[in-house]
């Protein structure tokens, strides 16, 4: 059991509950903390300084920011990985391991990579290992094994994390003093406000950066009380605004879900990220950001060290010193990079505490003890050129080194929103220069660092948002201007002959790595990023991008503004994939007859988003599926079958211009289609490619009922509505797809069955092939169509969908005496193949024109206009380069199967492909359709198909259709066979 030596006495505003002790394990050892502690705060309170290993060199790392960016301190809890220990709350029973170690944190066997650092400069793997090529797989396996952080747990249970849409008038991002002030200003004007803050509690910098300022504490309490009491404000802590999208759509991410927040106004008060200085040893455990130490002190009452050195370049460093002194920490010195140092009351208070300030000095290097943790630093004066005067160096022992040299704005969302940023010399940071409509920036992200000014800036933004919403009509005050010295050092980066001065802690990039990248020509910020990977780690450059820009700017001798920044893309903070996945929405369509099919033991197949019966009786495991299919085929050919065709697109076209409309949409003629007749509706796009087919039935002069293929009906409808508006014709298009149940009753006895259910005259005289009629079937009003898709006498029966099950059952009952058999799409596919009917989408592709499918007869080229006509005129003159031909395979004992998509070969060249192939029980041989060269389309000739295993099989070209070439069956004049 580890002691708790570093825990301070209870202090006002701390986040821990000292009445609730929590035990957890880290690297196999038991630790104890308090409820409210994070893993890092509890471990540091227990005296641990090394908390993780770095990505590349496996160097020891400790606390850096304690602000959700400590990516060198990530842990694994058995099921979840890459959990950030600096923000992960401890809970009883947690069993944690540091990620990215081999053999544990202390004995990590990969730690020796650190000694090979010179051999592994940035980009080494781009230049090495690819020769000799045969060894590349070997190296790839090893590099892959070494790379990456945590390991994905494939056995982790799936947890559904539903996304949610959300709405508010004003979204305030950041619950610091600026954000709270902005929220109150907007809410007081009547706006519904949501505040999102990634921290566990609200207050922002007021929770850890008050430096003994009693008024700051009072401000925090006043703001939080007012927000808590305000009914218009919804404060969401533990919620990261991770991405901005068009029209103020902001992704809010919390522990359990992603909320898609649509806000009328967005106020970005996200503050700044404190930035590290770059010097030798700046990554040793014990070296941390000043704000990180303040978080430990004030939020968790943890004293992380006994004796500290502060590397300073702004006033915040002096507030930090006061905090440390108040916590009983000895501040050995403040090494202030600024020659003039700090002046005024703050400096006087620090001096009064006995802290020695070294003006114009920096940290040359940090030293480690035998445990690899910080034991001291060397400070030395810094010249105007940024060089150390090592002749005046001093060694100072310490166990804590705090960097307080500057900040960079958390402006990622502003960038994503399209804000134009400018580099302000007064504050040495990027600030918004031109904001998009309905987006506001306030506080530190806006270059306003003083607390009182932040409050004023927040109020200004809240009023501006209220004004934009029409809730406020008064004056909006001017934005406060920063006064005093810059909070940011322009170049806190120092070279060292031994390197190990890290710019990017995520990727273990040292100063020399970036300089080498520049020298190799990657001297554009985007190129440098991609070559060196700076900013591409889990913290996404929050602590490295600005320093990288400064390094590149100095190397090129240009301004920061001219150097620019990399592109900020959503999400700027890592989001668990489970939250992005959310709940699975996979829309599925079922016809009204679905339950009948299910009860009949249909095996379903997805056709687009439809579920269709593939074959019936699939539970009979003693019968192979193909046998069931062949039984259905045979039933249709010999007796009668019934198939659910409710998935067909169904469109009612009505109005005086209905025929004219179809003339323009489809290739054929419609104005001369008689009432009670139907015709093929073949559709091409403007390049003459076949896109769909169906039938168009004319029920009245101003009424056509058009079908479209199952998977294309949505696109057909959309396109029709588009053209109807464009052409301004007097017609309406109504999507009736889901409103009609449809079934195809097909087979020699189909008329017998239908006659049992209707009093309408369905004889060949009244309803010939191609005829349509309205009638009552089984007591239900129906649309009847004489079709022949499967090559038999057939009737499509369309009835209101809610009556579909009743009609289907009655058809089945009436057909029982004729051995009626339901059939699925697999049987239908064979039946239509026997009849040589191509299916658009299966027997055509994205380039197929009607001439290639032998459908030139369906083109009314003499019409004044139809979509695709001009292209088809050109294609007609040019002639087809391939044609769809029927083929059969001889019974030659060749076991190599021919499948769809197998290639047709001629003189060693590919000339086409097989589009459909199946065994025909009617013809007792394998038949198919394939594209071949026009010259090959000669019945009885032979083509070569590259079958399974690359075997070339000979196929015989056959005249289409394979079955019933005289169309006697579909005309209903074929002789009937007896049924059982």
């Amino acid at each position, binding site marked *: 059991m580890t002691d708790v030596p570093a825990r301070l006495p209870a202090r006002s505003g701390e986040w821990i509950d000292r009445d609730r002790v929590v035990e957890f394990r880290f690297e196999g050892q038991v630790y104890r903390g308090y409820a409210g502690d994070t893993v890092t705060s509890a471990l540091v309170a227990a005296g641990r300084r090394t908390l993780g290993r770095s990505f590349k060199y496996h160097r020891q790392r400790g606390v850096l920011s304690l602000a959700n960016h400590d990516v060198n301190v990530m842990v694994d809890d058995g099921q979840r990985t890459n959990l950030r220990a600096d923000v992960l709350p401890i809970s009883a029973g947690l069993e944690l391991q540091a990620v990215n170690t081999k053999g544990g944190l202390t004995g990590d066997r990969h730690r020796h990579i650190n000694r090979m650092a010179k051999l592994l400069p940035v980009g080494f793997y781009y230049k090495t290992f690819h020769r000799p090529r045969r060894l590349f797989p070997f190296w790839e396996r090893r590099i892959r094994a070494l790379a990456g952080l945590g390991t994905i747990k494939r056995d982790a249970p799936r947890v559904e994390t*539903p996304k949610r849409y959300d709405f508010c008038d004003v979204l305030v991002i950041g619950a610091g003093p600026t954000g709270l002030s902005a929220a109150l200003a907007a809410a007081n004007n009547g706006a519904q406000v949501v505040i999102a803050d990634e921290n566990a509690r609200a207050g922002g910098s007021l929770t850890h950066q008050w430096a003994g300022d009693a008024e700051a504490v009072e401000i925090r309490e006043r703001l939080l009380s007012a927000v808590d009491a305000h009914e218009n404000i919804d404060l969401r802590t533990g919620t990261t605004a991770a991405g901005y999208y068009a029209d103020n759509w902001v992704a809010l991410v919390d522990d359990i879900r992603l909320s898609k927040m649509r806000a009328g106004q967005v106020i970005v008060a996200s503050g700044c990220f404190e930035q590290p200085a770059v010097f030798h040893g700046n990554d040793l455990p014990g070296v941390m950001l000043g704000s990180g130490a303040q978080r430990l002190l004030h939020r968790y009452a943890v004293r992380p060290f006994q004796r500290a050195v502060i590397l300073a370049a702004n006033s915040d460093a002096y507030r930090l010193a006061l905090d440390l002194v108040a916590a009983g920490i000895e501040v050995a010195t403040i090494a202030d990079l600024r020659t003039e140092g700090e002046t005024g009351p703050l400096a006087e208070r620090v001096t009064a505490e006995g802290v020695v300030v070294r003006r114009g000095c920096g940290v040359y290097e940090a030293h480690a003890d035998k445990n690899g943790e910080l034991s001291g630093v060397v400070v030395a004066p810094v010249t105007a050129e940024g060089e150390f005067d090592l002749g005046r160096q001093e060694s100072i022992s310490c166990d804590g080194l705090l960097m307080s040299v500057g900040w960079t704005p958390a402006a990622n969302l502003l960038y994503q929103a399209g804000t134009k940023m400018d580099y302000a010399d007064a504050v040495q940071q990027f600030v918004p220069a031109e904001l998009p409509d309905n987006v506001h920036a306030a506080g530190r992200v806006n270059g306003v660092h003083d607390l009182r000014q932040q409050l004023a800036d927040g109020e200004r933004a809240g009023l501006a948002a209220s004004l934009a919403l029409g809730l406020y009509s008064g004056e909006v005050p001017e934005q406060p201007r920063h006064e005093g010295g810059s909070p940011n050092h322009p170049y806190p980066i120092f070279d060292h002959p031994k390197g190990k001065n890290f710019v990017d802690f995520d990727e273990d990039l040292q100063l020399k790595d970036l300089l080498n990248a520049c020298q190799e020509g990657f001297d554009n910020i985007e190129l440098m990023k991609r070559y060196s990977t700076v900013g591409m780690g889990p913290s996404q450059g929050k602590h490295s991008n600005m320093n990288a820009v400064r390094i590149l700017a100095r190397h090129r001798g240009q301004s920061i503004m001219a150097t620019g920044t990399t592109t900020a893309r959503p999400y700027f903070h890592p989001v668990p994939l489970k939250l992005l996945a959310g709940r699975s929405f996979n829309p599925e369509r*079922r016809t009204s007859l679905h339950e009948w099919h299910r009860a009949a033991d249909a095996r379903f197949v997805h056709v687009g988003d439809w579920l269709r019966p593939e074959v019936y009786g699939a539970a009979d495991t003693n019968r192979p599926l193909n046998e069931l299919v062949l039984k259905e085929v045979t039933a249709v050919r010999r007796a009668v079958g019934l198939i659910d065709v409710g998935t067909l697109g169904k469109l009612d076209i009505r109005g005086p211009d209905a025929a004219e409309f179809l003339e323009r949409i489809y290739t054929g003629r419609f104005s001369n289609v008689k009432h009670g007749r139907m015709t093929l509706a073949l559709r091409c796009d403007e390049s003459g490619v076949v896109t769909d087919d169906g039938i168009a039935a004319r029920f*009245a002069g101003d009424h056509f009922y058009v079908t479209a293929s199952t998977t294309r009906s949505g696109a057909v409808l959309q396109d029709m509505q588009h053209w109807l508006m464009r052409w301004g014709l007097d017609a309406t298009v109504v999507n009736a797809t889901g409103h009609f149940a449809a079934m195809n009753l097909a087979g020699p006895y189909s008329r017998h069955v239908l006659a049992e259910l209707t009093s309408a005259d369905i004889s060949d005289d009244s309803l010939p092939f191609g005829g349509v009629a309205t009638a009552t079937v*089984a007591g239900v009003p129906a649309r009847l169509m004489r079709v022949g898709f499967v090559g038999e006498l057939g009737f499509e029966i369309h009835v209101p969908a*809610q009556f579909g099950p009743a009609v289907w059952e009655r058809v089945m009952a009436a057909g029982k005496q004729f051995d009626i058999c339901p059939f699925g799409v697999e049987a239908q596919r064979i039946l239509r193949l026997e009849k040589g009917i191509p299916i658009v989408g299966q027997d055509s592709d994205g380039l197929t024109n009607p001439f290639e499918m032998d459908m030139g007869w369906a083109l009314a080229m003499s019409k004044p206009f139809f979509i695709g006509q001009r292209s088809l005129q050109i294609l007609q003159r040019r002639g087809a380069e391939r044609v769809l031909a029927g083929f059969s395979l001889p019974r030659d004992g060749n076991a190599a199967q021919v499948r769809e998509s197998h290639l047709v070969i001629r003189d060693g060249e590919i000339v086409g492909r097989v589009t459909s192939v199946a065994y025909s029980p009617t013809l007792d041989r394998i038949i198919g359709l394939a594209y071949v060269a026009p010259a090959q389309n000669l019945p009885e000739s032979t083509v070569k198909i590259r079958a399974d295993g690359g075997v070339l099989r000979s196929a015989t070209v056959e005249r289409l259709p394979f079955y019933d070439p005289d169309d006697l069956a579909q005309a209903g004049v074929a002789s009937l066979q007896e049924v059982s």
Partner: protein
Amino acid sequence: MTDPMRTSPLSQQLEGQAARLAVVQEMNTVVEARNEAESSAALTLCDASALPRFGICGPRAARWLTDQAVALPRAVLGTQALPPDGLCLRTGEAEFIVEDGPEGSAASDLARALGCGLDGVYPVLRQDAQILLRGEQACDVLAQVCAVNFRAPGERLVFTRLAGVSCAVLPPASQPWFRIWIDATHAVYLWQTLLQIVRELDGGVSGLASFFPRCSHRSKSPAHTKEQTK
């Protein structure tokens, strides 16, 4: 031969959840569900596909409806109550849907009167499924499946997508529940999706009588009688 019955696309989904079935507008309907919450604040889903609809469109549709004494909504996407439980929806400049309650006959009367259509007045077959959603958390359910802010006050019909499928949603106005019309072929998918969310929020299923008390006295359906005798 008996007259054929209409079948709800959700009938199978409600199998086993019915405490009482009845024939409502020629459709076997769950009028009372098992373990039905009594409070109107409780989150609940209901299949109201039994309510018959009559669709009409065309440049002279509004005039024809007016001639039939149907009160029309003035604005597109507006609604007009047709007592006792009926509704007229204006889905476009020249498109209307008339829906009956459990007892009305306006839809069938209008369909009969119009027949297969007149010049500029066209009947439109409406076989949509209808799902009713009620309860204090109803907006929380919709927020998980739809990008429209249903918390904002509004009485107009909203054409949107729920869980990826096109729907028409009528927010609570004269009736304190959401009415969701959906293409019947997507009904099972949407019902299952909404019910999963409703159950996660401790809600359940209600019968139609919970929304339309008038249908509670209807006779038991043959299916129910069969179940009772088992």
